[in-house]
């Protein structure tokens, strides 16, 4: 996906609830329409993140799985 990434949040190795806390905090620092890339390994994030986007009104642009069990998400600030 070809979008400009404003910030990358690396939460690889962290367990629930830390990835979602760090994401919520990081998104507060972004301006509207800016995109954050998040890299994580906690399986809880896979279900929590789309739900969080839905609830907070932010847009999940893309999710994919990279080598080594790393999940990658692109989230656009509302």
């Amino acid at each position, binding site marked *: 996906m070809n979008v400009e990434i404003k910030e990358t949040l690396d939460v690889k190795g962290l367990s*629930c*609830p830390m990835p979602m*806390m760090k994401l919520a905090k990081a998104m507060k620092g972004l301006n509207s329409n800016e995109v954050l890339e998040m890299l994580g390994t906690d399986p809880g994030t896979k279900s929590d993140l789309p739900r*969080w986007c839905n609830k*907070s009104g932010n847009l999940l642009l893309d999710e994919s799985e990279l080598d080594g069990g790393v999940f990658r998400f692109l989230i656009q600030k509302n």
Partner: protein
Amino acid sequence: MAKLCMGLFSGSLDKLTAAGVILSGAAADDMDVEVFVLLQGARAFIKDNESKIDNVAEATHLKDEFINSLEKLNVSKWYDFFEMAKEMTNIKIYICSLAGKIWGGEKLGDFNYLVDDLCGIGEYLTAAEEADIHMFI
């Protein structure tokens, strides 16, 4: 904004950790939270007691495995979860006045940095009535 009301009766490490994880999730979701600390729970909030809590309520024979796993996974301490969550969202922590007295806490200054105020049980019940989610731990 959704409101969460938590009755925190337990003062054991496993349940305090669970409470901390739930508060962290609530913080990520930007919820308003009120925690009412009851009886055994209040002991964990007496000044300087937070880091001394090492008993578990469930599966006590697996206590060492539980504590070792928390350390291995680098899971935050229960009081650090509380503190991080409080920094992110509106979380108020109240100690039931009777509970405080049981463990020698008569006034706000007897409790640690996490505590906002002392309260009576009626306040807890009203908050539970008004909240979207109520849980008792």
